[in-house]
């Protein structure tokens, strides 16, 4: 049994959180929370529904930044003409999640707060260098997504805080946006590995390369070291090999029912190679 609240404003929500009741849970789409609750893996003493908070439903582009309310559903992301035009790979990632029913409920904030290593939106948002706005009654802070994840199902979020907004700068116009997801089937699939990349090749030299991966480490992961190796370089077979080696050092996959460590490592190499070849505009 639990108390159920449906605040009508953000300040009401923050007030409820401020009370600091243990096992307070925020219900956005519920596609993870309710599954956990039903299985007995989650205690809930106070459940607060976010559905009616207009403050969490923003979707706008201001000063070259896209600002997304944390309670936007995947479905809204998929259908937004702004996002389709500006960040098609984020839309693609949203479309790869679950089924239409799941996407009608699940939210982008929920996808990140759940902190699954396989969160499909995380790799594209990581390469977009998204910032999260975390609010509590007394204060507000902005942190980069890359430092938000602490481990599987663990984040920096304070129990009295809520993620209100996810924002990122528009990627450069002629930048490649790539999202790959490898799952066992074409829908309702939890990824075995995923990869998002941004970047372009100017006169054959790679610039603005950003790469992030999912399902191959305790958290979704930006491959900073691999990026560093590639920046400003011309893509060659040898560089690709080296980039793969560097990426292997950065990831730390596990074996589970969906795939082994060896396979995940193999696949990250393949996805990385494909992404870089696409950006460089050549098939190696």
């Amino acid at each position, binding site marked *: 049994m639990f108390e159920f609240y449906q605040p009508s404003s953000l300040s009401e929500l923050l007030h409820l959180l401020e009370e600091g009741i243990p096992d307070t849970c925020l219900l956005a789409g519920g596609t993870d929370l309710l599954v956990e609750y039903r299985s007995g893996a989650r205690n809930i003493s106070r459940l607060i529904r976010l559905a009616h908070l207009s403050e969490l439903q923003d979707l706008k582009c201001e000063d070259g930044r896209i600002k997304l309310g944390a309670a936007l559903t995947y479905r809204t992301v998929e259908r937004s003409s702004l996002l389709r035009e500006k960040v098609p790979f984020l839309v693609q990632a949203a479309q790869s999640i679950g089924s*239409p029913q799941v*996407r*009608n409920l699940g939210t982008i904030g929920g996808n990140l707060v759940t902190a699954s290593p396989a969160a499909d939106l995380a790799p594209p948002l990581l390469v977009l260098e998204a910032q999260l706005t975390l609010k509590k009654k007394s204060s507000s802070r902005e942190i980069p997504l890359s430092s938000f994840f602490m481990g599987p199902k663990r984040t920096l979020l304070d129990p009295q805080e809520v993620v209100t907004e996810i924002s990122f700068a528009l990627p450069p116009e002629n930048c490649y946006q790539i999202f790959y997801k490898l799952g*066992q089937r074409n*829908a309702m699939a*939890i990824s075995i590995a995923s990869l998002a990349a941004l970047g372009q090749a100017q006169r054959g030299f790679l610039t603005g390369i950003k790469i992030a991966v999912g399902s191959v480490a305790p958290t979704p992961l930006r491959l900073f070291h691999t990026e560093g190796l590639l920046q400003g370089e011309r893509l060659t077979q040898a560089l690709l090999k080296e980039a793969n080696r560097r990426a292997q050092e950065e990831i730390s996959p596990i074996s589970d029912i969906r795939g082994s460590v060896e*396979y995940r490592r193999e696949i990250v190499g*393949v996805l990385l190679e494909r992404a870089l070849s696409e950006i460089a505009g050549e098939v190696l």
Partner: protein
Amino acid sequence: MKIVGKSIRRVDGLAKVTGQARYPQDFYLEGMLYAKALRSRYSHALIKKINVSRARELEGVRAVLTAQDVPGRNLFGHMIADQPVLCQDKVRFRGDAVAVVAAESEEIAQEALSFIQVDYDPLPVVSDPRQALKPDAPRVHEKGNILTHYKIRKGDVEKAFQEAHLVIESNYRTPCVEHAYLQPESGIAYVEDTGDLVIIVATQCVYIDRHQIARSLGLPEEKVKVVLAETGGAFGGREDISVQILIGLLALKTGRPVKMTYSREESILSTAKRHPAYMRYKSGVDREGRLLAWEAEIIADTGAYASSGAAVVQNMAMYASGPYKVDNVKIDAYAVYTNNTFAGAMRAFGCPQVTFASEMQMNKLAAALGMDEYEFRRRNAMVGKSEFATGYLADVDNCQIVCLDEVVRLSNWKEKRYRQNKEAGKDRFYGIGIAAGFKNVGYGSGYVDSSSAEVELMPGKVRLKISAVDQGQGVETILCQIAAEELAISMENVEYTNPDTSVTPNAGSSSASRQTFNSGNAVRLACLDLKKNLQQLLDSRKWKRPPGYPGHTSYNWSNILQEFLSMEGETEGMASVIGRATYVPPPTTPLDPETGEGIPAYSFGFGAQVAEVVVDKRTGQVDLKKVYAAHDVGRAINPLQVEGQIEGGVVMGQGYALMEEIILKEGETLTPDLATFDIPTSLDVCDIESAILEVPDRHGPYGARGVGEMTTISTAPAIAAAVHDAVGVWIDELPVTAEKVVRALKEKEFQGKDVREETLPEKTLQEKDFQDQALREDKGIAHAPRRTTSHENWVIFKGDLNV
């Protein structure tokens, strides 16, 4: 014929799509309680003590029962009863029920489970059937871990292998899989004023359920009434008892109606699975590509309880050498107990496992011989009077040949198989593969296989009474079509009575692809009986001529029938006329324990399928593009429904081939739900083109034979063959996951071979290979009418449905 052979709309369709159909979950009775079972915490343990007193004290709890409350035999099982209703001293798998609760709400019942204290003494677990065969393995049952060992001995395999031009030996493994029907197990029980116990349940046979319920509750069978609720899929999984005995027990104890519905997790955990199998196959051919010898050792994991495992494994033995002529056969098939979830019946009953192995062997042999896979099969197919591995001599006509010919024609095999450039994009390769397969119609093996029907002519309608369960396969429509055809009336005049042991006669279970065949014949015979009785009524001159009826001389059964049907509602004093019949199919026998000799079945269904794939060589992903499926059904009573069976079977085969696996570790299910046990979604299902072939059966109604199961057995080996054609590796273990493909390619690379090297047979195909006219003429083989269907013009909808 006016109705048989037509794609009549399903008689149960409208109620199902409008939500009028009542599944067991939809029944709410006054004062109803909800039941929940406490399942075992261990895969194998002794029960030292069970304390339910705290659970009983919980408010809203009406009963907490354990083994000592079971009044009758505390054992049940579909064919062999060795599974406790409630475990008393030992648990053998995680799905074992230890106690059961009835409470005022589902939540209270669930909560009560946590107040039941069970003290266990854990025992060593055996979860690999190969380990379980060892003499020092933990014993799941007192009698030892081997449930059955079937042998087939024909000719002299040793000698034949020595004489063979070429021998291929391989080890295969097929996984444990779940039926994954839409509707989880559910039922409701109550006690009538007469003291009779009523069980409303989704099942495959109301009579087999009644027998087991009565036995465990210590009631005479006539005091138990089993009524069918709508059944949302079954595929063999509802042959076993699930909620029936537990709710009956609770209804008797509390005197109130009791409902129990499994969660998906409970369904996956505690009900029968498809047997995982380890199979060693060895096959030899002569220089001309004729099969000389076939040897197989099959170890099937039957899990903690027998269920129908012995019969499933007997079927594996009988069909292990495929639909081919072979003079020397040696088969050993073992059903072995382990502490895994028990295995039982699942669509095609042992055939998917052995067909995967035998068809892989056929494709490997063809490749090694440099012979076309289709031609190699055609050369070895059983045609006309053929001797089975069990020594049984039967005329199988040219059913296998027509399926092979048709699927090759339909798929344009000749051209696609020898396409030189198989590249389909960067790192992507096209492949095509073929497989055949056959399976028995009906239980066979000496089991009682009869079906009884009653047809009642009443004012305004003909009521069909038969206990054939429609679990979605469409038997209700088929039987109504047959009654309408036989009586020359319209479909609207036929009313199908819901199966109910107190009303409808026993039709046997809806399994083994048998209902169209057996119950179809029973309905036909009952209609004949009705016509005879009508004529007698006329002859006895007891028939009261309706006023104004013109002449007496033209009176016949048909006139009377029409008179009845034109009446509105009940007419005072008007008795109905009844036709009754029981159809008993031709006899079969169990296999001889030493030689395997016997009559396996009285009818067989044949098929052949071709699969097209594109494989990503780097990621290993297999993209199934299309499956062509040709199946000989003898006579399609309802072609649209046959097409549905073919498409459903192919999709189930696709899941088996590419993704499905219940992973068990020390008896614990690591894939407990549909988020971890992946089955194909609508975005995975490939294009399917089916061909319905009709070489009439000697005994089936209008020549029809069954089709429900045969459609699923050839898909996996056809897909595995296509993967080999694409990238040159054999994946001997299902499912063919992307990871296995990558691993196999790496191993091959390591061995320093070009992976593309072996994909093309040395010999290219000659036109004459496809024309075996002499064969047809010799045998005077029946012409097979052909129907083909295609969905090529369908819009494949890949987006959302809620735009």
